[in-house]
């Protein structure tokens, strides 16, 4: 590689006006951009989708079973944010969004979801209909591997559930006092939340016509602002086979010879 020559040519280009008519913006790294080009795709624009849904007062502390208001707020916020991202991608001429960073906040009175990613398209491709646009939280590397294996992403699926852990009876509280015992009310509440959330994510994937969900991320645990509520949220990219059959990638093995050298510590000479 003649880096010096390339640099000279590159610096020369600063004297001239930019040649491209439409500029692009992207949050991809140089490696990711090269990977996309290797399969004939290019970044188009940085796109975002945001939504915020309200949660009514008092739902976190009283009641039994699922906190339906909070679960619906999560579902609504995720869907609205995803829809906006989808629409922005179609507007800028992208065929899909990759590397979507998902930020979600569950607060006492509202649920916020914000999505940020890079719209991409096959090099030089024309605008397509909204229905054909995909949204995915896969990195450009994962997207490239997925395409190489004959699969295509369809969209983001999410599921969330928030459940009240019932308070123990007075008898149970007295019996369990000063003992190291499992608080089954919390365990069962977590199981319920997990089952509902995963089921919702799977239903969403089925509605999109997908056959699987990859790169699933989950968050779980008690709500910091409500002592008797636990939550479980899950999201991932819905995929389906694009061709007739799955193509095996058959990776080759690489044995790097650059083992890290154990550093010499001068202080060790002094002894203890």
């Amino acid at each position, binding site marked *: 590689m003649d880096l010096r020559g390339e640099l000279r040519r590159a610096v020369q280009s600063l*004297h001239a006006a930019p040649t491209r008519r439409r500029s692009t913006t992207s949050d991809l790294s140089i490696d990711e951009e090269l990977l996309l080009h290797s399969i004939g795709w290019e970044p188009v624009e940085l796109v*975002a989708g945001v939504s915020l849904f309200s949660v009514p007062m008092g739902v976190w502390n009283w009641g039994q079973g699922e906190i339906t208001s909070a679960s619906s707020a999560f579902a609504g916020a995720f869907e609205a944010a995803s829809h906006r991202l989808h629409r922005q991608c179609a507007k800028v001429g992208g065929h899909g969004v990759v590397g979507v960073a998902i930020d979600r906040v569950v607060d006492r009175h509202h649920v916020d979801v914000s999505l940020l990613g890079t719209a991409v398209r096959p090099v030089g491709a024309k605008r397509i209909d909204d229905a054909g646009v995909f949204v995915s939280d896969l990195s450009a590397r994962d997207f490239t591997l997925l395409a190489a294996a004959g699969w295509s992403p369809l969209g983001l699926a999410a599921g969330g559930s928030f459940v009240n852990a019932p308070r123990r009876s007075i008898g149970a509280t007295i019996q369990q006092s000063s003992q190291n015992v499992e608080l089954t009310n919390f365990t069962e509440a977590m199981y319920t939340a997990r089952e509902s959330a995963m089921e919702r994510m799977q239903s969403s994937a089925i509605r999109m016509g997908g056959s699987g969900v990859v790169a699933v991320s989950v968050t779980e645990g008690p709500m910091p602002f409500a002592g008797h509520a636990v939550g479980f949220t899950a999201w991932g990219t819905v995929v389906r086979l694009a061709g007739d059959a799955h193509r095996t990638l058959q990776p080759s093995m690489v044995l790097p010879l650059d083992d890290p050298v154990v550093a010499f510590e001068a202080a060790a000479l002094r002894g203890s």
Partner: protein
Amino acid sequence: MCAARRSRWPGATRPPDGQPWTTYLAGQRLAKLIESGSMPVSVAAAVSSVRVWAYCVTEYLLNGSTSTWGGRPAVSEVTQVASARMAARQIAREHVRAQLGGDSLHGAQMIVSESEVGEGDQEVQCLLRGNRVRRFKEFDPIPAPRPTVRLR
């Protein structure tokens, strides 16, 4: 005692107007960027700030109060705040786009912060920064990547 000595890459070209180019990249990432056909021009950054003057219904919804105003259900989108957050991102993108002048923004980073002013009023700030790069040659055809498994 040591003396500082200015060195110059032999044959290096002076940038236009004597303005040095700037980038967040260094080392192998910078080398890869140039090798792939893009030259860093400058660090580009833009900030947008959007103020939300909350309607009554926005304030009620953010406080968790059930409002009967406009027949809104208790679980509903706080559209005023959602629009402001979208606008902050969009304005920052437009501002940075205005600086590009036909170049591209690479490796962008978006940082959003929100502060509550009180009674539902909010200020949303969005910082967008990245490397402004100029293409000086088209992408060379790149062979399809070959997957490998690293043995350790």
